[in-house]
């Protein structure tokens, strides 16, 4: 027998052919996309959260002359401040834009006096402004008093956990965490409960109108998350028609946020649980029945354990959606602060980007955690499926079916009801005084927020996101799934592709500001353009499309590539002729998903739009903010019509294309 140890020497590696080079180039391009559009911005944000700016008075020295022009002794700014106690420590902490007037250190200062002032830095980095000129020198500089009044000290940058320390010592900020977690927990329990009942009825009963209920359950996906907030204001707000129902409680705050959250997270939870319930095995129920287990016992010992992964997954998805949502608390949160609002306030309100970054990092934690748990659970869910399972067939049970119908009917009323309220509010002249109908609220050009141009921009964004996003996502998934070799590279790629799911939109948007608004970045040119909106939206919704594409690609025989290559055909010919046509249903699904989400998203783009690229979803937010709630409702409904239309078109197109190109599926 031969020796069993590998002889020493170099490993054989195949020469690269043209195919190999093209594949690698492709992969490099898409990996580069993910690095630039995701990894680098997140890194920029993370490092920003550790940056603090403060005025370091130790770095400056002053001399003042008497009337005769003889200068007194040099004194450091810190020493002066210590004597006079002009600035507190808190006032010395600032943002990157901070300015500190030098004259404040000299109480007797008058710009008309003939005194002269000298100043210098005591170390290398001691920046100050003379008017708009930035000075940074250790040489003495002399200024007359009229010039001296225009001198401002500039802060210096330092790196540390100071921001985090400050964040956690601020009780108002800290309470946002509690609020966010509270809201997310309550919404999760309610949504998962409601969605479970709904999904259970769809899968385990023989009630009527299942098709209709399925359709209705998906409606909330078609509108921005803040739209239910607007409807709730009309119903229960200060001038709401059902205000008395709340018995003195205010809809502005946790109640409103929770109800709205149940609305917009319902379809996500329902889909996941429904999938889990649909893979039940008839034989388990037959076994339970033959053992004379009661319905109740069967439910707890067969149904719930079978659906447990779905329930866990749905809970985490809902929790993440609620805790990272920004639109709803903005519209109906009132004074109730949550994390996502804090980011917005810090960045848009106070221009404190560093603190915004800190809140973002904190918001990342629950999202990343939920993401990790969800991935683990998903892996287990798959292994539950076996080819030999017999699908569950529900039997008629009049009482139970009626119960199911009632539950689904109630949920459908809730969903359709909120949308109808919005529609009604959008059409009413002047709520609640003049209830005659008109279309004046659709005249968006009369209100702030971007007008009809915002709507057109949204359509543009959605179309571009759908087209470019689908190309990038599908090609990327193909590279991960079907390319041989480069194992490590593909692993990194897969990680990057999964990452966006764990990154809340607000966080992504803020990260983009830090990365792309940096003048030193050569990509700075795309800041404020439609391009950055498309890039951020594609990236934000990358993961779901990626997973859809992977699932479709995994179903394709792995031996197509070797066969094509043995026939000396380039891989891209196989890709175009076979892979893409076979995956067309999945590709269409990815594109409609991207389109709908691009129409409704607020969170990432709210930081990135400019006056030329205002968007419909952001316009809803801004109009609501400005008190134009009716036009906001009208714009929200425009998004709804558009998405519903797009879905319909997608369905028709899918059917047509499938009939034409998928005739091979025949048998």
């Amino acid at each position, binding site marked *: 027998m031969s020796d069993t140890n590998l002889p020493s020497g170099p490993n*054989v590696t195949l020469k690269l052919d043209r195919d190999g080079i093209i594949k690698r180039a492709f992969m490099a391009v898409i990996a580069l996309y993910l690095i630039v559009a995701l990894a680098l911005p997140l890194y920029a944000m993370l490092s920003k959260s550790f940056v603090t700016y403060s005025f370091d008075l130790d770095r400056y020295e002053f001399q003042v002359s008497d009337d005769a022009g003889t200068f007194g002794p040099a004194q450091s700014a810190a020493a002066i401040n210590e004597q006079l106690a002009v600035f507190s420590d808190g006032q010395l902490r600032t943002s990157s834009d901070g300015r500190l007037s030098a004259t404040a250190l000299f109480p007797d200062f008058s710009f008309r006096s003939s005194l002269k002032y000298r100043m210098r830095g005591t170390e290398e980095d001691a920046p100050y402004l003379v008017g708009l000129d930035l000075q940074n020198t250790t040489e003495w500089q002399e200024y007359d008093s009229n010039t001296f009044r225009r001198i401002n000290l500039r802060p210096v940058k330092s790196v540390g956990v100071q921001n985090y320390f400050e964040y956690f010592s601020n009780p108002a900020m800290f309470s946002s965490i509690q609020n966010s977690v509270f809201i997310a927990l309550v919404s999760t329990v309610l949504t998962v409960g409601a969605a479970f009942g709904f999904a259970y009825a769809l899968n385990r009963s023989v009630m009527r109108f299942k098709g209709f209920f399925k359709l209705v359950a998906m409606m909330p996906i078609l509108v921005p998350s803040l739209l239910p907030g607007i409807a709730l204001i009309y119903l229960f707000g200060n001038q709401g028609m059902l205000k008395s129902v709340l018995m003195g409680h205010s809809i502005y705050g946790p109640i409103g946020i929770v109800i709205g959250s149940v609305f917009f997270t319902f379809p996500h939870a329902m889909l996941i649980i429904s999938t889990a319930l649909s893979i039940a095995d008839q034989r388990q129920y037959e076994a339970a029945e033959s053992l004379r287990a009661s319905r109740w016992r069967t439910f707890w010992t067969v149904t719930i354990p079978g659906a447990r992964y779905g329930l866990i997954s749905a809970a985490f998805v809902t929790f993440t959606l609620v805790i990272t949502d920004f639109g709803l608390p903005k519209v109906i949160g009132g004074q109730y602060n949550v994390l996502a609002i804090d980011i917005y306030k810090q960045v848009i309100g106070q221009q404190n980007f560093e603190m915004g970054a800190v809140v973002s990092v904190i918001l990342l934690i629950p999202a990343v955690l939920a993401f990790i748990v969800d991935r683990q659970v998903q892996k287990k869910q798959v292994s539950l499926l076996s080819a030999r399972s017999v699908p569950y067939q529900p039997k008629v049970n009049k009482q139970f079916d009626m119960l199911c119908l009632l539950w689904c009917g109630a949920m459908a009323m809730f969903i359709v009801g909120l949308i109808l309220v919005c529609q009604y509010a959008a059409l009413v002249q002047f709520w609640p005084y003049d209830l005659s109908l008109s279309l004046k609220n659709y005249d968006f050009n009369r209100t702030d927020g971007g007008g009809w141009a915002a709507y057109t921009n949204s359509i543009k964004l959605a179309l571009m996101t759908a087209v470019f996003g689908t190309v990038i996502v599908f090609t990327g998934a193909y590279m991960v799934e079907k390319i041989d070799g480069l194992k490590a590279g593909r692993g990194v790629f897969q990680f990057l592709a999964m990452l966006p799911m764990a990154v809340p939109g607000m966080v992504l948007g803020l990260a983009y500001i830090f990365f792309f608004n940096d003048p030193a970045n050569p990509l700075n040119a795309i800041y404020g353009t439609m391009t950055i909106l498309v890039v951020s939206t594609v990236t934000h919704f990358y993961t779901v499309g990626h997973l859809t594409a992977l699932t479709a690609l995994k179903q394709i025989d792995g031996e197509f590539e070797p066969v094509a290559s043995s026939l000396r055909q380039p891989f891209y010919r196989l890709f175009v002729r076979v892979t893409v046509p076979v995956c067309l249903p999945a590709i269409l699904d990815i594109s409609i998903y991207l389109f709908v989400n691009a129409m409704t998203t607020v969170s990432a783009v709210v930081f990135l739009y400019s006056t030329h690229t205002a968007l419909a979803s952001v316009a809803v937010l801004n109009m609501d903010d400005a008190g134009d709630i009716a036009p906001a409702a009208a714009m929200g409904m425009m998004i709804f019509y558009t998405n519903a239309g797009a879905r319909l078109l997608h369905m028709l197109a899918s059917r047509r294309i499938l009939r034409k190109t998928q005739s091979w599926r025949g048998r």
Partner: protein
Amino acid sequence: MSNKPESYLQIKELWKAFGEFVALKDINLDIGKGEFICFLGPSGCGKTTLLRAVAGLDPQTRGQIFQGGQDVSNLPTSKRDYGIVFQSYALFPNLTVARNVAFGLENTGRPKADIKARVAELLALVGLPEQAEKYPAQLSGGQQQRIALARALAINPGLLLLDEPLSALDAKVRVHLRHEIKELQRKLGVTTIMVTHDQEEALSMADRIVVMNHGTVEQIGTPTEIYRAPASLFVADFIGETNKVATTYQNGRVTLGSVSLTTKMQGVAEGAAVTVAVRPEDVVPHLSTAAAAGAANLLPARLMDMEFLGSYWRCHLQSDILGGQDLIANFSINAVRRLDLKPGLEMAVELPAERVLVFAERA
């Protein structure tokens, strides 16, 4: 094979490792032009790994491969010259049969009419001239595999690789297609390597069989050589059936209890621990030791049980000399009738010296 064909494919000192696991160990092969070679072995023996190395799909870790005199060791798949057929057929589901077959012909500057003619020719060759416009899903498994074969042959490859091409098919279709593939290969004279774990398939189709086990080549030989003169106990055991007894080798003889058997096996070390192997069909029945006058290597035995298997009887015998171990023998219908063999009969069996195989125990 008296006149050895000119060499076409050589594999030299080839090793393959997956991390720590060494899947192929020092493989050396020389395959002649036009030969039909089978890689045969149990699952996990490395036969598919070797095929994939030849194809360049999973390159070897060490060693060289020469094809038609050219070193192809580190050439990418597209620069090698072969056609491949997989167990899954791997037909493109959205393309018609004709387009599937034409896939390797298009995009090469051939005129359309030329391609069409070639596709028709290939479909006729595999016996499916009528199916050109159908989709793969509309064909049976056997038909799909023939289309896959036609597609692989379309580009006139110098080498045809078949990776368990028949494993997914029904038993009957399998036997039929076995014959057809062999015919086709003979007609075209294309050098062919087929991977299989089915010994019957290998025996009936191959010019030579490469028996593999644990990443090494156990034996290379024609089907008859492999069957009649297995080079190792593994080969004897894996291909066909054998009765095995452990004993020692002394002076050209092996001792079983009170009986000492002669063997023609050469090259076994004196006094070595050995396993004696005899195939059931090589056992010769006699009514008694006395009745078999002149025969050597006789064992007294009792006929315990008989199964009728159509063309022969499968008999279970026991002999005090072998202890409690069963001896399996296949007796012809004729012999059973002539000797009037019945269960319970005390009889004798002869183990012909030239059919007694002796294998030294592996260290």
